């Protein structure tokens, strides 16, 4: 073995044995530092004559390269080991809980109103609103319920002591129907609107609350008849419940503001103790459920709303929003809607991102 080979082998074995980066650095200085042994050999080249240099230089250069490579390789190894050792001390128990964010929710009534607005927008219905503190004239008189009308008594009306600007009492609207009159008066005909909102009846038991939500539908045009009403209700209910299996039963009824008046029942079955819409109510295991009141707008209402009843006719309907929400999403206690119990809101409420869309389906999956 030549002298150089001995130096190289000795250097490589010492580098391999270096315990840490400090020791490695000391070796680098020892071999390749300014005063280093390999550096010293390189310096001898300067004193040689060209022939001698040509003969010895490659070996010395190779030695320097080999030592440098050995140092670099060992450095990588030591650095990797050091990182690993450091990471080992940084271990976290990731079964511990992460910081909690609050989970917000949208109330079922709002969700259902958004769904209805979406469906009816596709049918060309705009959304109209009106005051909840109404006057006697809009709530009753204009809807063909004059002062002495017995149907007024059936409305369980909340009254204020205040007199309305045009006479009569101020009251809390008992239905969304005054919006019919206000819309026709303000916008004329044709009309195609829904009017959702709070309504009030002086009634309170397991299935009634003194405040609840209704949605009114009104279509006024030249050739609208009961068949259009039926189609509209079927179409909306099929879209709302996302099923084609909706069977309606129209029953004659009475509302002063419609003529003819039609009560609409929908067929349901009892599944696991809950009502599930679908099928004819006359089918075995099925029943009919009263869902909404409707009819052809009474010509007197059209007249009092400033339109010519010989030219314009149409239908109106009113349906309980809370009721629709309960049927679709399975709540069974109306009173809980208005309690603000955060446990209930968390359970029955909807994510902010459950925005109803026609392409995604207006319903929010459980």
């Amino acid at each position: 073995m030549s002298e150089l080979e001995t130096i190289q082998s000795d250097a490589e074995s010492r580098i391999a044995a270096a315990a840490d980066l400090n020791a490695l650095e000391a070796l680098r200085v020892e071999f390749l530092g300014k005063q280093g042994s390999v550096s010293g050999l390189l310096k001898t080249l300067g004193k040689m004559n060209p022939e001698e240099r040509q003969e010895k230089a490659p070996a010395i250069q190779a030695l320097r390269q080999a030592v440098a490579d050995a140092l670099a390789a060992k450095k990588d190894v030591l650095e990797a080991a050091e990182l690993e050792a450091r990471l080992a001390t940084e271990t976290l128990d990731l079964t511990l809980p992460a910081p909690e964010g609050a989970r917000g929710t949208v109330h079922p009534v709002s969700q259902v109103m958004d769904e209805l607005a979406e469906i009816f927008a596709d049918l060309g219905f705009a959304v109209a609103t009106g005051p909840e503190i109404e006057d006697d004239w809009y709530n009753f008189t204009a809807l063909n319920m004059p002062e002495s009308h017995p149907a007024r008594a059936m409305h369980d009306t909340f009254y204020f002591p205040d007199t309305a600007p045009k006479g009569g009492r101020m009251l809390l609207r008992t239905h969304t129907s005054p919006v019919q009159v206000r819309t026709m008066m303000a916008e004329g005909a044709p009309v195609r609107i829904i009017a959702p909102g709070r309504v009030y009846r002086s009634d309170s038991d397991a299935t009634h609350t003194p405040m609840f939500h209704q949605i009114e539908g009104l279509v006024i045009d030249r050739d609208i008849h009961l068949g259009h009403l039926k189609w509209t209700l079927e179409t909306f209910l099929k879209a709302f419940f996302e099923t084609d299996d909706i069977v309606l039963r129209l029953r004659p009824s009475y509302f002063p503001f419609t003529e003819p008046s039609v009560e609409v029942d929908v067929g349901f079955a009892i599944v696991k103790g809950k009502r599930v819409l679908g099928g004819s109510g006359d089918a075995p295991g099925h029943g009919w459920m009263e869902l909404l009141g409707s009819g052809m707008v009474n010509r007197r209402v059209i007249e009092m709303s400033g339109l010519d009843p010989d030219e314009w006719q149409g239908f109106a309907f009113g349906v309980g929003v809370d009721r629709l929400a309960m049927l679709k999403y399975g709540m069974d206690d109306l009173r809980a809607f208005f309690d603000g119990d955060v446990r209930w809101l968390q359970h029955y409420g909807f994510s902010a991102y459950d925005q109803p869309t026609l392409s995604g389906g207006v319903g929010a999956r459980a």
Partner: protein
Amino acid sequence: MKFSLEWLKYFLETEATVEEISEKLNAIGIEVEDIEDPAEKLEGFFVAEVLTAAPHPNADKLQVLTVDTGKGDPLQVVCGAPNARAGMKGVLGTAGAEVPANGMKLRKSEIRGVESNGMMCSTRELELGDDHEGIIELPGDAPVGEAFALYNGASPVFDVAITPNRPDCMGVYGIARDLAAAGLGALKPLREHVIEEGFACPVEIRTDDPEGCPAFYGRVVRGVSNGASPEWMQQRLIAAGQRPISALVDITNYMMLAFGRPAHVYDLAKLSGPVVARRAKAGEQVLALNEKTYTLDESMTVIADDNGVHDIAGIMGGEHSSVQPGTTDVLLEIAYFNPESIGVTGRKLGIATDARTRFERGVDPAWLDEGLDGLTALIQRICGGEASEIARAGKAPSEAKKVQYAPELTQKLGGVSVDEAEQRRILAALDFAVSDDWMVTVPLRRHDVEGAADIVEEVVRIHGLDHVESVALTGNVGVASPTATPAQVLERRLRRAAAGRGLNEAVTWSFLPPAEAEHFAPEGNGGLWVLDNPISEDMKAMRPSLIPGLLSAAKRNLDRGASSLRLFEIGRRYLRGDGGTSDERQALGVVLAGEKVSRGWASGKATGFDAFDAKAEALALLEEAGAPVANLMVMGEAGEQFHPGQSGTLRLGPKNVLARFGALHPRTLQAFDVDGPVVAVEIYLDAIPAKKGKDVFARPHYAPPALQSVMRDFAFLVPKGLPAGDLLRAIRGADKANIVDARIFDLFEGQGVPEGQKSIAVEVTLQPGEASYKDADLKAISDKVVAAAAKLEAQLRG
């Protein structure tokens, strides 16, 4: 209204089943709410004969009977009824049967050591009457072993809802007429009554109030005996939910329930002088049949004699002249009262009776003589007696309405085409007369029919609404246009933004307890809207703010043990508008209560909400609402409901308040009995300015600058009272061309800061334009910043 199948079949010849009748009733607009079959309730009860009766060995008042049930060996039954005796026939409830009156299930048992295999029943136990003195005694020919329901002729009972426009169906006969028209059978002709009138009516009958009582007919019947009404009548009345009282009372009830025709019977002995329909005198009183005394006024029609009022006309009779078991001579009254005045009087007095319900909706004005004859005939048949001639005062409306109709209207309005002959048949069956050119004469009892649309309804409902086919609305081919108004879009967006920020939407009552509403009442708004007839005191005043309802909801939750509440609601505040109108304004309320962060392994102790949490919600939601948040000023005057030092308003200009926020005042928390701190926000959606400009979609032009922005930090000593926001605004405005942002990153008082001052450290972001900043540029900008701050007495710290 209830009626039995048996009663219906008395008027209607039909083979239809209960189900078919029910379906048809629903189809023609008479809603069946319930069908009750008494045979089901009486299952397990049989006609039985008592063979032997012996004293109970261990009880004085009991007997041990052997009872023949017609099947197998006689049963031993223990019985406590005094009238139980050998040889009598009665009703035995056998083991397994359920006693209708109390739901008790009968079973084989031992009573004081003696086996009993059933129960002999009283009428009360079977809900057939009130008698509980003894057990039912059946006639000797009652067939032993027959089901008692069958023997008793139990008939299914329909409970129907009659809409207020159909008083003519508030009697079984009217319902039968409708069913017959709908093809469910044939209406039987009514019995013709020929009353032998033995003498002139001895009582003068008069109407001095032709407006309230257009027609008043009377007749005297002498020599009646007012016992119990016959079994068949009692059964019909009981099925209809009427308790039998005495023959005369039952007969008037029967007339009302059969024909929708209320009538009244006076004890003639209690009357003196002419019997007159007149207006009550103010303050006049009457003791009515319900044993209450009513004070009347001059708007009310009454029936009176020389001594005073005997009847609140059409609503309720008086106690004084009511018929008694010993009554022998009676005055019958059949009248036509003005429906409106009956309604007004009934509402004023708060009396709801079957008579009022019918008169108020309008009885048949054409059925006075027939009604009186029918009443007389029944009385004579059941109570005997001799009838007088009829005394008639006034005249009921007799002019029939005529409506020009056209058969094609069923299609135009009802969406269903009905054969002309069928239309004529239907109308005739309902007693409408139709001329060749479709002029329709309306029967007088149909007060509800006014125009062609009503005729359409009659035809279509009898023809069947199930024939109406769905027809699509026209229009809107292609993609539907947006329909929501800007206000609706705003509301929807805010709702989802709030939920996205972790808030839970609640819907709370529009009404509040008055004290809570008063606590949040705005100043100078003419006061709250307060209900006259609230459902309870706690639901009396309309909310002037969304915070109180949410605060109460938060309290309920905290009381239930909830630890953290983030509630919001979007709804109306009810204020007063001009000239007595209501001014309802959409608002968004937020209430944050309890723990903001609950205690945790990493975060340590629980922390509560503070006013800055409220500010954060207010600003974030206003930003989502499109309000120019950068231009908002934080000012005071959030209202006395808020902590005076930890609340504020966000305004666009000094007048326009977009929102208020902050910690609630301890007095507010005390008033609502909530533990604090609680912070709240109220955003006034109506105050948020609408977006201007036509270009709704394109954003303003923007290209990210090529050069990097530069940060410079400044620390100022400022007077302690200087709002930090003022300093920030001054710095931002110091050099608008270069300064794009300024943020406070440190706030310090105490050591090293002179008394009465605080140190505010601000990080200013500078954005170079075309060229990088040179030292001189930066120096110039810094000088402007320092100069702007100096105007607020802020000194750059060395």
